[in-house]
């Protein structure tokens, strides 16, 4: 096999900017071909490091291929194809360019072998994703994109400062395992944490993703957070702090998801919950747990993309995403409904779906390492995710109260895109081995000493029991009217702290700095110079007139006459039109005054 002259990410990044120059079917062919060309170039790579570039005094590695970067790169390219197919009918240049650029940055980031090029691709992710949020072209999405960028610039700055300190300390740019001990490592850790949407840093995700464009969110939900998961798996595997961050992430969003009215926000919360499983897996850090996190990221991109696509199709056809406005759509969108149910079953980890073959590895790994409390919380989160994402989303959108919405089925390209994702969800659920073969680490179950297999009696039965009784709880709460009613509302999250405190900060700064500014403007900028100018203009006239007044007074002129003469002298001197006689007298008086002094 030969290595192409260019890294795979370049095809997507450069290709993205050529899209606006093409028209009609050629454009459609081109955007579909880009991920395929990238895939071919990607699959042609063998393990190793490629495309080393000298930049200043650094050696940048644009292609580090190992099993870890391969799995992430592969799924990124697959979902790019699905995503591009999904947005095809919109024919929106902004979405095409931003989506492909964003995808290319993600592929570039996972292939980057050094911290500097990783950082550059990381920042490019923020740029691409920002435009995908704005591509919805509503006031709400523009504001959300602004808040999103603020948060990611903050995260980016943490990462940059961490990397600079790290390179200064170690003298190495290589992107590899980092011990969480020094300031630099913490800065990198939390810089990645912002993109990974850790608890309290997560607000950008639930704020921006539901506001993003119908198709844009398919890209958004795949790249930013999963690149962060990759970075954590690369730099901080086995870091115990991650276990608890992950457990918190898996647990808290499900409570929000239950009471949330906007179904796209429910998806955002369940995205956080699923990330929690991955972060926990990385924190546990055994070979099996890391494999679990990587498999879960792979499968998650597929089923989460599928769920976003199905809700996107609903939004596209009805313009609605709220429980209070939806229901009964299975009648007009049966295929979308079917695909949504497949996505929902996968995220809930039903046997025969890909969620089952990935989530169960992390659960088993936590038991193998005797993290029982972690296991209990994850099991709770696993039951909860079926409850809020697995049932709530399809139920309220497609069944529940029929709101009389009769619309067309989603466009064909959207259905094809959802079909591909749904097929992969079930295929990998039934035949996980091809995916397991790609995994970066040893997939042996330590307690048994045999390769991990999700399909044994205990796993299948216990998971089915958990899910069926979770559904039973939903059913009984629904039928008894105890399930929280859908209410048009917004639920404040930790973003309240950011919005209110930054709003307050802005207000204080506005009042303090702007009033200081106006005081300075009034005194220093306007007051002092104009008074000085006035003084310099009037001083010679005043001095001369007053000195002359003494002379005139000695001649016995009346005070009225003196006043008139003074005004006359001052006006003349100010205009520069004093007669020679006056000037001479004034000069003489001034000179005698000076000599006397």
């Amino acid at each position, binding site marked *: 096999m030969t290595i192409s002259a260019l890294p795979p990410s370049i095809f997507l990044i450069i290709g993205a900017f050529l899209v606006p120059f093409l028209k009609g079917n050629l454009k459609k062919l081109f955007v579909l071909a880009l991920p395929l060309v990238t895939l071919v170039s990607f699959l042609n790579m063998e393990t190793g490091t490629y495309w080393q570039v000298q930049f200043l005094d650094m050696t940048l590695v644009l292609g580090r291929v190992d099993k870890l970067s391969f799995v992430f790169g592969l799924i990124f390219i697959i979902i790019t194809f699905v995503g591009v197919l999904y947005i095809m009918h919109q024919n929106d240049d902004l979405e095409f360019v931003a989506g492909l650029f964003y995808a290319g940055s993600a592929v570039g980031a996972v292939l980057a072998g050094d911290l500097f090029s990783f950082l550059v691709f990381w920042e490019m992710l923020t740029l691409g994703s920002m435009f995908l949020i704005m591509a919805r072209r509503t006031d709400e999405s523009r504001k959300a994109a602004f808040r999103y960028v603020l948060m990611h610039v903050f995260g980016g700055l943490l990462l940059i400062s961490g990397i600079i300190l790290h390179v200064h300390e170690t003298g190495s740019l290589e992107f590899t395992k980092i011990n969480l001990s020094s300031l630099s490592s913490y800065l990198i850790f939390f810089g990645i944490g912002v993109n990974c949407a850790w608890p309290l840093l997560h607000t950008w995700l639930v704020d921006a993703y539901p506001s993003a464009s119908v198709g844009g969110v398919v890209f958004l939900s795949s790249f930013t957070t999963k690149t962060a998961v990759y970075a954590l798996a690369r730099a901080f595997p086995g870091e115990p702090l991650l276990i608890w961050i992950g457990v918190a992430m898996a647990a808290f969003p499900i409570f929000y998801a*239950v*009471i949330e009215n906007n179904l796209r926000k429910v998806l955002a919360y369940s995205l956080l919950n699923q990330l929690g499983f991955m972060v926990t897996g990385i924190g546990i850090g055994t070979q099996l747990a890391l494999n679990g996190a990587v498999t879960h990221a792979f499968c998650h991109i597929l089923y989460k993309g599928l769920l976003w696509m199905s809700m996107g199709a609903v939004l596209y056809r009805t313009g609605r995403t709220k429980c209070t406005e939806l229901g009964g759509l*299975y009648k007009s969108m049966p295929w979308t409904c079917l695909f949504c149910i497949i996505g929902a079953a996968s995220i809930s980890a039903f046997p025969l779906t890909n969620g089952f073959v990935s989530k169960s590895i992390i659960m088993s790994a936590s*038991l193998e390492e005797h993290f029982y409390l972690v296991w209990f919380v994850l099991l709770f989160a696993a039951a909860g995710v079926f409850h809020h994402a697995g049932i709530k989303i399809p139920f309220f959108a497609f069944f529940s109260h029929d709101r009389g919405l009769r619309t067309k089925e989603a466009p064909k390209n959207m259905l094809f895109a959802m079909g591909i994702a749904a097929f992969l969800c079930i295929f990998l659920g039934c035949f996980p081995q091809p995916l397991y073969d790609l995994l970066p680490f040893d997939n042996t179950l330590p307690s048994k000493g045999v390769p991990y297999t999700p399909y044994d*009696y205990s796993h299948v039965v216990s998971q089915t029991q958990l899910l069926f009784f979770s559904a*039973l709880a939903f059913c009984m709460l629904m039928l008894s009217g105890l399930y929280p009613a859908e209410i048009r509302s917004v639920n404040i999250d930790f973003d309240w702290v950011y919005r209110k405190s930054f709003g307050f900060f802005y207000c204080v700064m506005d009042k303090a700095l702007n009033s200081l500014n106006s005081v300075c403007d009034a005194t220093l900028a306007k007051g002092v110079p104009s008074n000085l100018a006035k003084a310099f203009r009037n001083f010679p006239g005043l001095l001369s007139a007053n000195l002359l007044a003494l002379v005139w007074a000695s001649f016995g002129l009346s005070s009225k006459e003196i006043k008139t003469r003074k005004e006359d002298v001052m006006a003349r001197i100010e205009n520069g039109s004093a007669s020679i006689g006056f000037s001479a007298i004034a000069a003489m008086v001034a000179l005698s005054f000076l000599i006397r002094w």
Partner: protein
Amino acid sequence: MSKKHIWDDENRVKKFLKTFYISCIALFLVDFFIPRYTHIEVENWPGFYAVYGFIACVLLVFIAKHILRPLVMKEEDYYDH
């Protein structure tokens, strides 16, 4: 008269729910007859996963409804002014 759809038929919904309840009972009972491979003691309790799943979801809903919602729910235009 608008077209009748598959779940418009109440009997079908009832039949579906009945099948679902029976599967739940069957899944619960199967633990008493076929042992599972387990890591920890609680997993040996028959019906552990079923009971845990049920209680977890009821707790989840009650905490979300009665504790979280009163704390965080605001008008839809809360942030707009």
